[in-house]
């Protein structure tokens, strides 16, 4: 386990809520992404991850991480989902039809890799020049067409195109090491 990770674990064991919050914030979205792949439901996914962190804090004194904090967290989410899935299986035994759609076998390594990519993504995104970031978000997060973005930001379509190109280049370079 990395030195930095050991420090974090020690801090949390000593009830350092700031470190705990930092941990939460770094892993929450990616872990939810994983849980989402397994459970196919966003609310449920968030519930599972929240539960994992809740229990982690509750039992912090007994916290034992051997390989890495990251795999510990992903495995914890996996176990939560598995537990939920088994519980649902029992419920469904008595139901007339299967309603729970799950994918417990979704590859955890893939999920962890995607999580890493997400950190890179966030870093690149925050380093983009403001207008470039704006254009990119309007296009990807909000699904706007180029001419709609141009109108909203009072810039030309050519500028929108150029900014998207800039963003693509930045992400391409950022992801280069990981893909």
């Amino acid at each position, binding site marked *: 386990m990395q030195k930095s990770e050991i420090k974090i674990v020690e801090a949390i064991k000593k*009830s350092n*809520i*700031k470190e705990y*919050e930092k941990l*939460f*914030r770094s892993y*929450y*979205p*990616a872990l*939810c*992404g994983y849980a*989402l792949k397994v459970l196919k439901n*966003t*609310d449920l*996914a*968030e519930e599972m*991850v*929240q539960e994992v*962190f*809740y229990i982690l*804090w*509750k039992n912090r004194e007994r916290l034992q991480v051997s390989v890495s904090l990251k795999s510990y967290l992903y495995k914890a989410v996996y176990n939560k989902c598995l537990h939920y899935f088994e519980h649902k299986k029992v419920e469904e035994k008595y139901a007339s039809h299967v309603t729970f759609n799950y994918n417990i076998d979704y590859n955890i390594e893939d999920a962890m890799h*995607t*999580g890493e*990519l*997400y950190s890179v*993504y966030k870093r690149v995104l*925050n380093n983009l020049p*403001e207008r470039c*970031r*704006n254009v990119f*978000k*309007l*296009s*990807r*997060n*909000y*699904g*706007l067409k*180029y001419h*709609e973005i141009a109108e*909203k*930001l009072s810039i030309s379509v050519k500028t929108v*195109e*150029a900014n*998207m*190109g*800039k*963003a*693509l*280049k930045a*992400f*391409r370079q950022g*992801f*280069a090491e990981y*893909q």
Partner: protein
Amino acid sequence: MKRKKQHIDYTGLAKMFAGHNWESDTNLINYDIFGASENEMKACMDTWKTLDKMQEIEQFDTDNAWGKLHSRLENDSLIDTNKSEKIISINRNKWMAVAASIIILVGLFSVWFVTNNNGFGNNFAVENTNFEAKEVNLPDGSVVYLNTHSKLTYPKAFTAKKRSVELDGEAFFDVKRDESKPFEIIANRGLVKVLGTSFNVSSLGSSVEVIVKTGKVSLADTKELTHSITLIPGERGLLSESVLKKESNDRENYLSWLDGNLVFKAVPLNEALVDINNTFHCKIELGSKELDTLPITTNFSNNTLDEVLEAISLAFDLKVEKTGKKYILVSN
């Protein structure tokens, strides 16, 4: 063969990817025309696909989630409240203020609606063409009162991570508290974000004004992402051009259009008439300049326009002259 210095047309690539249908064939791409090698082309395609994957993770609101977790830990006495009080207020401000989430501004006449991960369509647009306030019940139990010539666009169901609506004109919002789904209003270039609270939003011309009745609300400039202010009851936020300002609310009668209550405390008559005109959608004017500064102190509660005119004329010994749709108050 000497290799040409690579000048890759990322702009062209991005444009192509944006318009490309990934469901269908992804292999027939002429990477040559973009000045890229086959490897570079593949790398760009992978990048684009990864960006799609990132969307799935981006939808999760970490600030909100942390707020919930922290509250739960507190409620279950798992954290030292004293120590963590500072943290709570920092986090609340953080999530109340607009982070880097970009919102689309809406012009006065567009009917376009922003969705989060809900896809397109399935929206209701309610317009109030009458003079009476129009009540709109939203799918989450929130109630919106639309002023005259105002329009509200909202989805049939709030299935996304946020409850997002769009306003043209003026409305009073009574938002149902739901910590798991922040409520947002897009009005002109402003973005109003709230937990559960009641407040008035008015988008006039190209500016936006927000006055808070209860709770806490944030107003942000969608063109300047980090530019936002938080408003509490008694405060008024105004976003005009790119100027965002907060002041204490001196507009006593900002809700008169809705509740019919008008309160005047030694207000100059010409100013009082502005509120009266807005409330009754009429045009009352003063016959002479001297009447402008006459101070009026009175409460009108669900009175008719005639009753209001009568009260004013009696108080200042004036008479009402009506010409067409205008009322003019002159000395007796």
